[in-house]
C-alpha cells in the first residue's frame, strides 16, 4: 500500500527564524526517497486548524513579537492539541516553538508571556544569551552507530521541566545551561533549542520522526537505507571541531 504523510508547517510566514524549512525539506526529501508520498501543508495565520489532518506538525522559531502572535492564535486550539498529543501526534518544536509548549516564557523585560501549556514546562529569561555549537547524547532506543545530535543553539530563555530530555548535553548549554538536559521527548513531542537547522546533520533523528509519523498514521514504519555519507561527514566534522569523539 502506498503510504502518504501530511506534514503541517505552522505559520511559516512568522516562524521561520532559524531556517525551519530546512527541517521540513529534510523530512519530506527523506520520506519521498523511500517512496512515501508527502503533502506539505503550510498553515497561515487565520486559517482553521484541524489536527486530524496532520501526521507530523512543525512549530518553528520566530522573534518575540512574532511568537506572541502565534501563541495567541494557537491558544484557541489548546484542547485539540492536547487530544492529538495524547494520541501520539508527532510534533517537532524548535527554539521559540519549543518554549511555546510550556506554561509561559519570560521576556528579557520580565514580562511573562503565556504559552500553550501542553506540557508542564517553564522558561525564565536569562542574563545572557546561550549561543554556540552544541552536541548532545540522544536519549533513544533507536538502533544505530551514532547516538550524538549536533547543531547550533541561540536562546536567552532557561527552560525547566521533569520530562525525559531529548538528550544529555555533551558540549554546549542545552535547556538552561545547568542541568545538562537538552530539549524534551514526551509522547510524540520532540522539543529542542537545537537549530542549524536540526535535521540535515542528524539524519537518524529525521528518520525517527518519519517513523513516528508513519506509525501514528497506522502504516508500517519500514524505512530503507539512504546514501548518508555527506550527512555523517557533516555530523562528524562538527564533533571534531568541538573535540568530541
Amino acid at each position: 500500500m502506498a503510504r502518504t504523510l501530511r506534514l503541517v508547517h505552522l505559520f511559516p510566514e512568522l516562524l521561520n527564524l532559524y531556517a525551519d524549512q530546512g527541517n521540513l525539506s529534510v523530512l519530506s526529501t527523506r520520506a519521498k526517497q523511500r517512496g512515501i508520498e508527502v503533502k506539505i501543508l503550510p498553515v497561515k495565520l487565520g486559517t482553521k486548524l484541524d489536527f486530524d489532518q496532520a501526521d507530523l506538525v512543525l512549530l518553528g522559531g520566530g522573534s518575540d513579537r512574532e511568537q506572541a502572535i502565534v501563541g495567541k492564535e494557537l491558544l484557541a486550539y489548546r484542547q485539540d492539541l492536547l487530544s492529538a498529543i495524547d494520541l501520539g501526534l508527532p510534533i517537532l518544536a524548535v527554539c521559540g516553538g519549543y518554549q511555546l509548549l510550556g506554561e509561559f516564557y519570560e521576556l528579557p523585560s520580565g514580562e511573562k508571556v503565556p504559552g500553550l501549556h501542553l506540557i508542564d514546562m517553564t522558561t525564565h529569561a536569562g542574563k545572557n544569551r546561550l549561543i554556540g555549537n552544541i552536541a548532545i547524547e540522544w536519549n533513544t532506543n533507536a538502533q544505530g552507530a551514532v547516538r550524538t545530535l549536533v547543531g547550533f543553539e541561540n536562546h536567552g530563555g532557561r527552560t525547566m521541566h521533569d520530562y525525559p530530555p531529548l538528550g544529555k548535553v555533551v558540549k554546549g548549554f542545552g535547556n538552561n545551561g545547568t542541568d545538562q538536559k537538552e530539549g524534551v521527548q514526551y509522547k510524540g513531542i520532540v522539543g529542542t533549542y537545537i537549530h542549524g537547522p536540526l535535521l540535515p546533520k542528524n539524519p537518524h533523528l529525521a528518520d525517527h520522526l518519519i517513523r513516528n509519523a508513519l506509525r501514528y498514521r497506522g502504516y508500517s514504519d519500514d524505512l530503507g537505507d539512504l546514501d548518508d555519507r555527506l550527512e555523517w561527514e557533516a555530523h562528524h566534522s562538527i564533533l571534531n571541531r568541538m573535540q568530541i569523539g
Partner: protein
Amino acid sequence: MRIRSMIGLWLGRATKFALKISGRSGTSLPGLVAGKVAPHLLQDLMAQLTEGVIVTGTNGKTTTTALLYAFLSEEESWLTNRGGANLHQGLLATMMSTSTLSGKLRIRKAVLEVDEATLPKITAFYHPSVILVTNVLRDQLDRYGEVDETLHLLKEGTEYPGTSLITNGDDPLAMSLGISRSELTYYYGFTQVPEVTSARADVRDGAFCLLCGEELIYDYFIYGQVGAYHCPNGHFQRPVPDFGGKYDGATKQLLVEESVSKDNQVYAIASPVKGIFNQYNLLAAISAARILGKSPATIRKGIVNYEAPTGRFQVFVGTPLRTLALVKNPTGANSVLRAMEEDAGEKVLCFAINDDDADGRDVSWLWDINIEEFLPRSFCETWICTGTRGLDMALRLAYAGVDRSKINVLDKLSQLVEETSGYVLPVYILSTYTALHPLSELLRKGVTNG
C-alpha cells in the same frame, strides 16, 4: 585637539610604521592602538570635516560607498574607507591616514561606510551632512539578535535635525526611518519592475506593518522584502521616489527621473555593476551625489573611475574567468544568484563558507538561500564547497535537489584555485567574509602564475 588624542595619534602612527618595516601593513592594529589610548581621537579628527557622508545599511554599503566616492572624487579630493573597514578602528585608521603630525586633516571631505551597530556611537559626537541607508535586511543572527534591533540602532543614528537622510523607499524597513522625520528626507526607488520577479519566496523580514503588525500587501517584489508595498490599514506605503530609477538590461543603462529638483531632470547613466541589488546601490549613490550638488555630467565622468571593491563581483581575468562575490546573509546571497542568472551559459559554482565571528557563527542562514529557485536557471556543471562549513553548504545543495555526484567538497580553501584551474567555463565563487581576502589573494597569485 586634546593632548591625549595627540598622543594616541603618534602611537598609532608609530605602530603603523613598525608594522610597515616588519612587512605587515594593512591591518587595523594602528587604529586599535590609537583608539585604546585616545578614545576621543576619532571625534577630534572628524570635527575637522567640512563635509561628511555616511553610508550604512545591511547590504551594499561597500559597493555604494565605492560608487559614491568615484562620483565625488572626480572634481576634488575626498577621503574614504575603501574595502569595508567600517568599525571604529577602521574609521580611525582612515582619518589618521590623512592627518598631519599635529593632527590636522589634509583632506576635509569624507564618504565613510559605517557598520549599523557603530553608527549611533559615531553620531553621538558627529552629525554628517548626508546619511544614506541602503536597506534593512536580515543579517547574521548571532551578531544582532534580530532585525528589530538593527532598526533601533539605525533610528538612533538618523534621528537628529540638520542631516539629509537618503534611503530606499522600496524597502519598508529602511523607509520607516523617514516617517518620523519631516525635513531633509529623500527616497530612491525603482519606478519599473526590472524583470519578472513575482512569486519569489525569498526571506521577507519587513513584510509586516511596523505600526499595526498587519501583513503588508505587495503589488510586486523586486528582491527580499523590497518592492511596492502598503499597509492594509493605511499606516504607510511605498513613497513616490524623489529619485526614480529604470534599468534597461539590454543597454545596461540606468535612467534616473528626479522629482526632487524644480526642473525634474531625467538622465541616463551607464551602469558598471551587475544584478538588480547593485542597480539599487548605483541609484543610491547617484541620489547622494545629486543631493551633494554633483551634476549628471560629473557622475558620468566619475563612473569611469569606479573599481569593484574586493569580492563585490570582482573579476579575475584569465582562463577560467573567475568572479568573486561576498555573501553574508540570505538576501545578499539570493541577489548574487540572481545576478548570476544574467549569465545563461554553463558555469562552475563554488561556495566558500566559514563560521568565524565576522562571518556569523550560526550558518542556519544557508537554508534561507533560495537554491531551489535558482537551480533550474543555474546551468551549473559542477558545484564546489569549501570553508569550515563547506559540508553544511553541500548538504544545503543536496537537499535543494542538486545531484550529489556533482558536489565536490574541498577540505582547504587553498585547493580552490587548483581545483578550478582545469575549467574553461566561467567560475563563480561565493564567499563569506573571512574567506574573501585569502581567496582574493590566492586568485590574484593563481592568475599571475597561470
